[in-house]
């Protein structure tokens, strides 16, 4: 008993060193995290940015529900459908950005047909898990003739925030979009509680 007591209280020459190394490690780890956060938050407005997106509707000469690359370069927002010329939009013409989330079934038509064909209602069980949350990014912009246009993109969850931040850094207003997101989430909560 005494021995244990003595051992625990015994000041080993290496003990202080280990603690110090541990502390340094922790400090270094959290420091790195902090550094990563501080480098991620500011958006460089001039740097090009691109992400995969699905054009749901609104862009002229572009098919609805088509996949492509949404990119921001300088003062232009571009959407390039795979293997086709890009459609460009001046960022200065964008008046508002709105962002909301939506849960969608994955797999498209083949998956839907497969689920319908599955026996004993197995398709329903698959549907229960085969859904994914997406960011729906809605832009309202003014055309050359002064007319109001709207474009809707579907992005992977989290990407919508990045695009919005990039657009806000380039001078687009997003205040209404914040309200919309709050309203949407409260509506969702109310629906869930019902």
């Amino acid at each position: 008993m005494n021995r244990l007591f003595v051992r625990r209280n015994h000041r080993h020459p290496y003990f202080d060193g280990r603690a110090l190394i541990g502390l340094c490690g922790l400090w270094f780890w959290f420091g790195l995290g902090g550094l990563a956060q501080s480098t991620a938050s500011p958006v460089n407005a001039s740097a090009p940015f691109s992400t995969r997106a699905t054009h749901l509707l609104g862009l002229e000469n572009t098919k609805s529900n088509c996949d492509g690359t949404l990119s921001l370069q300088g003062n232009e927002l571009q959407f390039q459908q795979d293997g086709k010329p890009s459609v460009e939009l001046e960022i200065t013409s964008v008046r508002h950005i709105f962002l909301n989330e939506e849960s969608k079934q994955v797999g498209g038509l083949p998956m839907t047909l497969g689920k319908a064909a599955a026996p004993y209602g197995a398709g329903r069980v698959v549907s229960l898990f085969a859904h994914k949350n997406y960011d729906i990014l809605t832009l309202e912009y003014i055309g050359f003739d002064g007319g109001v246009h709207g474009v809707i993109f579907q992005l992977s969850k989290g990407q919508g925030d990045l695009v919005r931040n990039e657009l806000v850094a380039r001078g687009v207003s997003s205040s209404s979009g914040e309200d919309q997101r709050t309203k949407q989430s409260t509506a969702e909560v109310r629906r869930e509680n019902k």
Partner: protein
Amino acid sequence: MKTSRRISWIIGVAAILATVVAFPGRLPGQTSAAKSSGATSGSSTQRNVQVYRVDAGDHDLAYSFQVAIYENLIEELNKTKQFERVLRDGDRNAGNIPNLLVLKTTIEKYTPGSETRRAVTTVSGATKLTVRSQLLTSDGKIVLERTVNGEVRFFGSNLQATHNLARNIAKAIQQSTWSGSEQSSAMLGAQF
């Protein structure tokens, strides 16, 4: 030789005559004439329409839905070819265009749905939209007023409801007996 030539010529003429009698509307000249007469008889084809943005009222309707209704409405009205021009809200040319009508859309009822719920239960999770569509003249007279529904019940995303709604509004305008300012007072307040 001569007789057989004559017979073939007669058969050819008879075939042409038979074709004319059997398919009177298929001749290109007649078709274009019919089209032009149809265009002049219906005064609505000479009309132009400006689509205003959707008024959500007090409903918690996602902005993506409002934009989708607006964009789908413009597309569907263009498809019907009932109006010479379909202008957007805020279009600067609107002031210079004669016979301009304004299409206002106000949300009356919105039931948010869920695609997953639809896929799992089939009977619940429908997204439903009910709007009041008003077609007004430039001096504010209501030419046509309809309450139109759009919904997605089984397959498709929630935004599909906006497409169905826009198609129903365009169809309602197309199928209405309204054909110009003469009938505007008769159609005032008409609903279905």
